[in-house]
């Protein structure tokens, strides 16, 4: 990064200049006549093509160009951070409308509108509402980018084969598109040893291109500012202050935003190669915030979780708690098949057995069956659970299992909720607002020995059932437990059914803001292909329900007919970003 360029940029844009025709004369005819844009819009001519865009919608020229599909390369610019402009990769040419030429030097007499002496970085260029002419892919621009690319690679070790970023690396992509095949650099590269920045983040110093995305993230979003740049020129590197390691709840994001493979999370290091990962949009279940994420899976294995953009919820980020909380999906303790009396059963057979027992007990009266569901179930599953109890078993004796909360945390631009039940709002919507207190009553009934069969649908990782619940379950003749992993709950059970993690489900969570967001199935359900919804439906059918086996999508469509809050909605309308409960739905009309 040169100081010279920075100083040019900071020059005042257009000092008042005398028009060439002398004061009072008619303004000179501009060489380029741009078509007039409709009200509120501006004309942006890129590579000879005119676009009418809303200048207020975009933060800068780079955003606008990339939104229009011109694919301007960049490293240091990130839409979630303030633009910095140090990588110089996003060069474009801006042409003076008055003279019709790219501006090669400041000539205040003829170029009063703007004066950019050479290609400029589009990330720090704001849109001119009077109209702009831009060359995004002209030969001089491409030439300039090629030079930048060559400089970026001078000290880069090119160890892509062993680098975890390979395959999703911006340096690779941009080098492929804009760089050249051979290096002209014959001298020795700077070799800098890798550094441990904190408990999980490791820095491969020599891969760094000093884009400062990480330092800016920690300054702006996390507000912790552990990282900064030390030294100057080609010796500059990212470092921590002694005794202040990079250790905060958002540190994983610096790995995501690092455009190269410089910052690597040691927990996930070497566990995946980017080109094998199938990315599925989903919602983080770790807290009731409902951050939008992508599940990165390789075949049936979930390899990592990455955040995706949703400016209404999590912006571009996610916290460390949610990011690392996926190991239970492929853990050894997962329940993968049914068990009846400690004997392995096919899931379907075990579910049917459970349904028969429930139905038989329900014959003896509504108090002889009891149920528990959890707020880790999707709306569809909760609805099926409710249908099973209220319509098939004709009992209202069910409660909600709750995950104990954790410490809430607030960052300048990010928030972690204390509530660890991702679908608490959904449970309240489906099962009624009184459901939160209902569990105590059911436990009481069980403890008195009135309940013959109890059906516990937990499907919660890390769930520690309370002592009262476990004691009460002792008094129940037949306990049916549907859970993710073996634990104290399943140990009490006569019939064990496999649950499904969030990555195996199609369904809807409602977060603490009342936003309905869709989870999509990233890996096939590990319980012999049955997710919670399928198991619940099988139990219900064996208990006497006439309902057909339905997909999550279809269940939601039917729910939309019976719940006024969900009217007109379906998974497709909710889309990638979700919708707030009860909000006016302009999209609903044209969504389907």
């Amino acid at each position, binding site marked *: 990064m040169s100081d010279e360029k920075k100083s040019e940029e900071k020059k005042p844009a257009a000092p008042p200049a005398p028009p060439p025709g002398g004061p009072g004369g008619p303004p000179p005819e501009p060489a380029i006549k741009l078509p007039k844009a409709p009200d509120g819009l501006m004309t942006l001519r890129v590579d000879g093509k005119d676009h009418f865009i809303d200048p207020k919608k975009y933060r800068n020229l780079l955003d606008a160009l990339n939104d229009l599909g011109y694919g301007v390369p960049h490293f240091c610019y990130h839409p979630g951070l303030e633009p910095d402009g140090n990588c110089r990769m996003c060069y474009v040419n801006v042409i003076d409308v008055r003279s019709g030429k790219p501006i090669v030097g400041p000539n205040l007499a003829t170029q009063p509108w703007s004066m950019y002496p050479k290609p400029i970085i589009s990330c720090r260029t704001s849109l001119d509402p009077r109209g702009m002419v831009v060359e995004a892919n002209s030969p001089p621009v491409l030439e300039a980018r090629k030079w930048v690319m060559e400089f970026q690679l001078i000290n880069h*070790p*090119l*160890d*892509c*084969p*062993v680098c975890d970023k*390979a395959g999703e690396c911006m340096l690779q992509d941009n080098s492929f598109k804009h760089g050249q095949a051979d*290096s002209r650099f*014959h001298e020795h590269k700077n*070799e800098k*040893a*890798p*550094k*441990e920045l904190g408990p999980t983040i*490791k820095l*491969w110093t*020599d891969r760094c291109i000093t884009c400062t995305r990480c330092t800016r993230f920690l300054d702006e979003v996390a507000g912790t500012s552990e990282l900064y740049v030390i030294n100057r020129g080609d010796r500059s590197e990212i470092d921590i202050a002694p005794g202040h390691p990079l250790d905060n709840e958002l540190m994983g994001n610096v790995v995501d935003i690092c455009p190269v493979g410089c910052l690597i999370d040691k927990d996930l*290091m*070497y*566990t995946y*190669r980017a*080109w*094998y990962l199938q990315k599925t949009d989903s919602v983080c279940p770790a807290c009731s915030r409902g951050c939008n994420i992508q599940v990165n899976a390789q075949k049936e294995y979930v390899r990592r979780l990455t955040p995706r953009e949703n400016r209404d919820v999590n912006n571009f980020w996610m916290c460390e708690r949610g990011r690392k909380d996926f190991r239970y999906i492929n853990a050894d303790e997962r329940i993968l098949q049914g068990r009846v009396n400690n004997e392995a059963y096919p899931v379907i057979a075990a579910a049917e057995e459970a349904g028969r027992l429930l139905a038989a007990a329900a014959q003896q009266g509504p108090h002889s069956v009891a149920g528990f569901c959890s707020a880790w179930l999707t709306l569809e599953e909760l609805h099926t659970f409710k249908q099973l109890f209220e319509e098939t078993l004709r009992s209202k004796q069910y409660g909600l299992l709750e995950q104990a909360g954790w410490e809430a945390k607030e960052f300048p631009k990010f928030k972690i909720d204390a509530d660890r039940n991702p679908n608490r709002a959904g449970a309240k919507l489906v099962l009624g607002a009184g459901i939160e207190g209902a569990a105590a009553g059911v436990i009481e009934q069980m403890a008195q020995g009135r309940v013959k069969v109890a059906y516990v649908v937990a499907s919660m990782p890390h769930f520690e059932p309370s002592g009262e619940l476990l004691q009460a379950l002792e008094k129940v003749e037949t306990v049916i437990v549907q859970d993710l992993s073996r634990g104290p709950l399943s140990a009490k059970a006569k019939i064990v059914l496999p649950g499904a993690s969030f990555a195996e489900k199609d369904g809807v969570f409602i977060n603490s803001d009342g936003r309905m967001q869709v989870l999509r199935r990233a890996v096939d359900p590990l319980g012999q292909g049955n997710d919670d919804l399928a198991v619940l439906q099988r139990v219900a059918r064996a208990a006497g329900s006439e309902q057909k086996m339905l997909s999550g999508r279809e269940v939601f469509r039917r729910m939309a007919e019976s719940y006024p809050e969900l009217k007109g909605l379906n998974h497709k309308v909710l889309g990638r970003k979700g919708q707030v409960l009860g909000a006016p739905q302009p999209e609903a009309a044209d969504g389907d």
Partner: protein
Amino acid sequence: MSAAHDEGHGHGPAAAELPPGVKLAPGDPEQTWVEKLYLPEVARGLNNTFKHIFRKKFTIDYDQTDRDNPAKFHRPREGYRGEHYLKKDEDGHVKCVACFMCAAACPAECIHIEAEATPTDWNNRERYPRRFEIDMLRCIYCGMCEEACPVDAIALSTTYNLVADTREAKVYDRDKLMKTGEDLGISLSKHKYRPDGVPGAVPHKKAH
């Protein structure tokens, strides 16, 4: 067939239009009735094949009963693509850096790798394959893995005797693949981890 005849039917270039020195290729020549009988030609063919019966045979008897006899123990030429093997570095560790390039290049998807950070006493690189398996039954012996390897860690030997009694025996793990190279005495990779200017796995001085 005359040129006029051709013109009359309007297909094929007439002889008059042809540039000088160019002749039409002859079609099937008219066969005489002797030729139409086929029998003389059949006799000639039979004569030809009969002579071949007494010629020297091209078959190499790669009967592996006698290793010392080059006529009996066939060694394929250099470049023959047989069984894979994994090479070693100077320290005797597996050369592979678990970059998955071979697995990515493999058209049969028969290579399965699990990467891991190297043990602390390996000081020339950070990553190595904890698990490296080739399903030889899926493999098509195309040699793309060898082409793709940036550190010359995997190669195809000239071992062509590829039979086994069980399917499981044909899934070769890392140790088996390394042993193949050791047995053949071609195990040491010539590649250095720090070749100047050549893109590849450049090592770091380890932090720990």
